[in-house]
């Protein structure tokens, strides 16, 4: 019986794969192909206009050249991004494309033979014509596993994913026993990528052993961390990799249903997942008797409604059940009693996306990447004051310095690095001296930060650390569900103290209270939201205490960021009498010329928006920020 069943699965899958391959071969082989990156980040930069321009141009010239909408390659700084593959050339990636450039690329490259090197970012393969991505310093560190497909396949066509090797791991997994799969994942050392780093294999084992049916698997795509956007990118660019991982996980633990919990702020991701689920169902990759086996599994899409705390697994489950998303005490862990009291696994998008690679390439291969206690790769979203913003995937154990200065190309406009904020509101700010820390689950925690979901916001000398701490507290205070007293009231008290600091009203006693309260909130909260909420305060206090003291003792913001502690001032000897740039741009009409036509800011009216500082031509540079505001001389 077993032997015949095995051949069925393989045969059913072979048929699907062959169909997909021939379909895409027919569509793409020996033709120029244009791929436009149109994930949310690309769209914000105008990718849809570019896509339309390519389509119009190709149609106008009656070319046999497919134009495909793909996801995000991770090079967000250069959006909109386009890849053109033409027989005889390596695939070439173009950046900062607009409709006019699109028209030119069709005319000169697709139709002619000029690859327009002026718009090229890099070729995707080594060649002797153009620089390739492998020649960039970042290529030494990057290693793409779960981001590999992103930006290179059509996320709306399941066949493209299958033609590229997709769902092969599922066919392979269904031939194995669930215990073999759990064993493989456990041996690989895969740790949950949601932030806490719990071994995925162990979690699955607990759930498999738990009694109660039906069992559920939930994909946590409620990526609420401000500053992290990799889950969004994976769901928009390669949704099937997550679905495949989910089906395999479902098979391993014996689940009947799967839920994908996507946050509603990601409309495009919702749309892509919905479409992907439909296609998977059509090919019988979900539903009953998957690939002719005895395994039945259905996946349901659920839209979150915007509550940060729902990233916590018990809160997420409450939300799925139609209640307010409040965490509950653990144990019992969801693996034994979760959704509707049944055994439930909650895994992050990235964790599930790794599964298919581990099944097809083996635990040893996975262990060979990264470091011993944190194998595999880490995905970070680089944002803030950094040149190459975007998504990066590097082996665990890469240092922060390598990520920021080599992969991310450092700080723009020659400013000085000050700190890097890792892990969102639960993480911390690490200074220059901590930059040689390797990124993995354990080292970052020692430094006071955490992996979190992988948001990495780089701060330069113009950013105030007290303000950053206040910002995160404002966020956690707002998002606290209100269940635990320490989290509900403690975060509010801490926020008030920090707000006082940024307004120059704090005392040294407040600082001591703040530190004490931070420890108490950490100890007295039920879930990670409250437990980690003081992290931004504790790390900034640990590394940037002098900035706090300057705010308190001198009423001065050294980074000139806290609005209450600064004033804009026009230096009379630098102001050019014939220039009115600041007067015209001031949004509240607070600037007027005096009798000598020197411009003066009415401090009463000024809202400190900084428009005049930007407007003042660089050859004069007459507008300055002063702190404390009493530095502004009287007339």
């Amino acid at each position, binding site marked *: 019986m077993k032997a015949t069943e095995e051949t069925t699965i393989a045969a059913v899958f072979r048929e699907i794969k062959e169909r997909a391959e021939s379909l895409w071969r027919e569509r793409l082989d020996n033709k120029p192909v244009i791929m436009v990156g149109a994930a*949310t*980040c690309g*769209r*914000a*930069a105008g990718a849809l206009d570019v896509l339309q321009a390519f389509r119009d141009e190709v149609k106008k010239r009656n070319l046999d050249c497919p134009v495909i909408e793909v996801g995000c390659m991770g090079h*967000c*700084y250069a*959006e909109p991004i386009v890849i053109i593959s033409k027989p005889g050339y390596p695939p070439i990636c173009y950046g900062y494309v607009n409709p006019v450039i699109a028209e030119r690329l069709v005319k000169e490259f697709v139709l002619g033979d000029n690859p327009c090197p002026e718009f090229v970012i890099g070729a995707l393969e080594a060649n002797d014509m153009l620089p390739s991505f492998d020649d960039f310093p970042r290529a030494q560190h990057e290693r793409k596993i779960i981001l590999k497909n992103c930006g290179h396949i059509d996320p709306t066509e399941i066949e493209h994913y299958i033609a590229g090797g997709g769902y092969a791991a599922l066919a392979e997994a269904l031939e194995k026993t669930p215990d073999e799969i759990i064993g493989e994942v456990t041996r690989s050392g895969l740790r949950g990528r949601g932030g806490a780093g719990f071994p995925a294999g162990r979690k699955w084992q607990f759930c498999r052993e738990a009694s109660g049916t039906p069992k559920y698997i939930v994909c946590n795509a409620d*990526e*609420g*961390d*401000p*500053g*992290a*956007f990799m889950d*969004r*990118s994976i769901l928009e660019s390669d949704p099937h990799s997550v679905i495949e991982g989910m089906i395999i996980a479902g098979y391993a633990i014996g689940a009947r249903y799967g839920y994908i919990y996507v946050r*509603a*702020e*990601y*409309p495009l991701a919702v749309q892509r997942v919905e479409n992907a689920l439909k296609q998977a169902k059509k090919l019988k990759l979900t539903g009953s008797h998957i690939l002719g086996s005895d395994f039945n599994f259905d996946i349901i899409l*659920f*839209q979150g*409604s*915007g*509550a*940060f705390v729902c990233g916590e697994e018990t809160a997420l489950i409450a*939300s*799925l*059940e*139609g*209640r*307010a*998303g409040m965490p509950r005490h653990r144990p019992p862990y969801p693996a034994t009693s979760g959704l509707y009291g049944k055994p439930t696994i909650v895994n992050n998008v990235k964790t599930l996306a790794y599964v298919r690679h581990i099944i097809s390439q083996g635990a040893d291969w996975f262990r060979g990447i990264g470091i011993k206690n944190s194998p595999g790769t880490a995905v970070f*979203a680089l*944002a*803030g*004051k950094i040149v190459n*913003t*975007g998504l990066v995937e590097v082996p665990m154990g890469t240092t922060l310095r390598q990520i920021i200065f080599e992969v991310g190309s450092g700080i723009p406009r020659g400013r000085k690095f000050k700190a890097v*904020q890792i892990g*969102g509101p639960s993480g911390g700010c690490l200074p220059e001296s901590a930059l040689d820390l390797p990124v993995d689950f354990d080292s970052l925690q020692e430094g006071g930060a955490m992996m979190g979901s992988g*948001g990495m*916001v780089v*701060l330069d000398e113009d*950013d105030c650390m007290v303000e950053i701490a206040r*910002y995160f507290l404002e*966020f956690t205070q707002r*998002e606290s*569900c209100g269940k635990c007293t320490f989290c509900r009231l403690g975060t509010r008290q801490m926020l008030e103290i920090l707000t006082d600091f940024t307004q120059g009203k704090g005392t040294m006693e407040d600082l001591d209270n703040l530190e004490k309260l931070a420890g108490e909130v950490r100890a007295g909260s039920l879930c990670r939201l409250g437990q980690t909420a003081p992290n931004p305060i504790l790390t900034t206090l640990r590394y940037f205490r002098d900035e706090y003291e300057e705010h308190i003792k001198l009423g001065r913001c050294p980074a000139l960021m806290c*609005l209450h502690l600064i004033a804009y001032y026009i230096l009379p000897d630098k102001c050019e009498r014939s220039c009115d740039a600041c007067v015209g*741009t001031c*949004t*509240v009409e607070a600037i007027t010329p005096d009798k000598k036509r020197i411009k003066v800011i009415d401090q009463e009216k000024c*809202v*400190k*928006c*900084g*428009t005049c500082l*930007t407007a003042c031509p660089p050859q004069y540079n007459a507008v300055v920020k002063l702190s404390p505001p009493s530095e502004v001389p009287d007339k």
Partner: protein
Amino acid sequence: MTAKKQDTSSEEQEQHKQDTKHILKGFGRKRLNLIPILQKVQGKLGYLPREAMMEIAEYLNIPAIDVYGVVTFYNQFRLNPPGKHSIRVCLGTACHMKGGYITLDAWKRRLGINPRETTEDREFDLDTVACVGCCTMAPVTVVDEKPEGGVEPTRVDGILLAFGYDYETKDKEKSESD
């Protein structure tokens, strides 16, 4: 956030009830359908008026306060009617560091409303959003579903001008009435 006294007419309320009833037909009477129902009703009506919440509570056979509790817990749901154009200012980390709070101030000043409110003429509603995942274009404001990158105070004025909104007279009216 509190439910403002609504100045909707009784015909409007009746219409809301009918629309809600129509949507409810597509769902089972189970508590787990509450959030999907609320999402669909808000998708249709633009917000969740009192009468719609009462209908839903009755249909699911749960206390009305449970519906209200869920609605006020999640950021996505709104209790007042939306404006013709929606302005959502991103306050993610990257946007904040690049001046998102200054942008929010500019919107508040020009529209004369606070986040989660709608202008009196129902032209614009203002809200904040935790992060739209376009951190690289900071500071971002989502104007009617379209994320706009690099929105600084002057760009705020530009966007309003593109809608033909005369903020200067609004500003004056406001200061006179103060």
